[in-house]
């Protein structure tokens, strides 16, 4: 019963309605710019696009952070443990001239995307399976039209769902 009422209220909620317009980065942008964008806009992640505005990668915040970690350390926790404190704090200044393209994993995972008319259930499932607090919304040509954040999704679900 409650479910039916819920769906009736949710019927109009699609991805494009709760999407925001995210700032994007390209592969030749410096890593420092990517981090800055994310922090300044208080986003849980970033979308990397190509020249035609098609998403190449949707990076959760932790993966944007990963871009800043020097490659030697990324997959070697034992090595990281050997770094003394003074040098450890210096890693933040490391990225320097490196671009997002330089630091993306290879091969990069298929970006987490949904169509504009996707239901909230679809969005939730993609987010959970891809473990990403950010999902890109793409049109039929694959071009980025917006992004759904975890916070927006949860808020919409809480507002639209049955009151218990």
């Amino acid at each position, binding site marked *: 019963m409650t479910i039916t009422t819920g769906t009736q209220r949710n019927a109009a909620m699609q991805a494009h309605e709760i999407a925001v317009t995210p700032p994007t980065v390209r592969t030749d942008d410096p890593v420092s710019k990517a981090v800055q964008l994310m922090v300044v806009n208080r986003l849980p992640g970033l979308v990397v696009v190509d020249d035609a505005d098609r998403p190449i990668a949707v990076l959760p915040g932790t993966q944007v952070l990963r871009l800043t970690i*020097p*490659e*030697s*350390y990324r*997959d*070697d*926790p*034992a*090595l990281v*443990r*050997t*770094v*003394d404190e*003074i*040098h450890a704090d210096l890693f933040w200044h490391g990225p320097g001239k*490196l671009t997002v393209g*330089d*630091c993306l994993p290879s091969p990069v995972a298929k970006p987490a995307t949904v169509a504009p008319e996707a239901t909230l259930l679809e969005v939730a499932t993609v987010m959970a399976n891809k473990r990403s607090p950010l999902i890109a919304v793409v049109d039929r040509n694959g071009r980025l039209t917006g992004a759904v954040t975890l916070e927006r999704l949860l808020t919409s679900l809480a507002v639209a769902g049955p009151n218990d």
Partner: protein
Amino acid sequence: MLAPVLALAIFIVAFWFIATERANKVKTVLFAAALMTVLGLIPGADIFYSEHEGIDWNVIFLLLGMMVIVGVIKQTGVFDFLAIWAAKRSRGKPLRLMVMLMIITAIASPLLDNVTIILLVAPVTLVICDRLRIPAQPYLIAEVLASNIGGAATLIGDPPNIIIGSRAGLTFNDFLVHMAPAVVVIFALFVAFTGALFRTDLRGNDIHPGEVLALQERRAITDTGLLIRAMAVLALVITGFALHSVLHVAPSIVALVGAGAMLLVTNVDVAEVLPEVEWSTLVFFMGLFAMVAGLVHTGVIGALGSVAESAFGDNWFAAATALLFGSSIVGAFVDNIPYTATMTPVVESMAAQAPDAETGQALWWAFALGACFSGNGTAIAASANVVAIGIAQRAGHPISFWRFTRYGIVVTLLSTALAWVYVWLRYF
């Protein structure tokens, strides 16, 4: 008449795609194998059961077992510890540092596969060179060269040896007795030669050993118990290989039992270790064996064998020489694994014609030495080279094709020449 031509055509096209990297190599071999199956060029379900015309499961499971074992050893942090310890001992002297890193690499390479060694040793090398403010490229190149040479010493050190050993029925001890002596001598000479080879790179660098001393290598190993248990299991596995003639257990079984023991004894999370297995590499091998089976089944390999035999007649030394130098050259331009998988049945038919078992075996050793050492020839000759160059590139210390090949060619020529002298002196 059509079948052999078709098989050869499919094979050559697939090989070309693999060698030029125009397509993903796993997809390529699977497609080629499937095509051969559909066209009836491989022996149907026998592909799974035939020892000589099918997928060599000994190789697949030996690789699988060792990958699991290595996956656990990786977690111990032992390589980082050793490398940093070596760097501190070297007091930042470039040549001493290079030799110590090469020795660490060479000790590990007969036991672990070369790609893994590079994955373990390269990051810590980059950090050390960074601290010492010296360019990392010469050290990475030296490590790759050392690992390709050292890997030739045992059955499990280099994939070509695993393929050859399984096909020719050569045991772990056979490799120790026949390959290891040559490899030890050649490696020693290589180390002695290192100073000259890398002299321009090692000259007059401003060494700041102080910053290396700040690294805390003890923290690399969090669980000494884990390390000890892992090393114990590894030692038992090696012993298992060596006792083949007594226990009559195939190396692949030893490796699988060792992998299971490793997981039990170290209490490592299975889910963490399974991703360490390079499944795509295993599938690649399966497809490759299926493709070669097609060549064997349609008689292409038999024909090649006959050509080789008529070319050499009774001159077995010439045959061995051709195998050694031929493998060294060809294997340098194509990845030495597909090369070895393809040539192994040819060498098998040649060895079958040999007048006595010793001469037949000599052909195998010449082939093995050539195939393993060819891995140093060019930047693409072996997977370890490609991996090292990729890591160096992404860390901002690029190694160009020619920079690597310049050193690689010299080392390959010298090691092959020395190997030839060894084969001549020992077997002919």
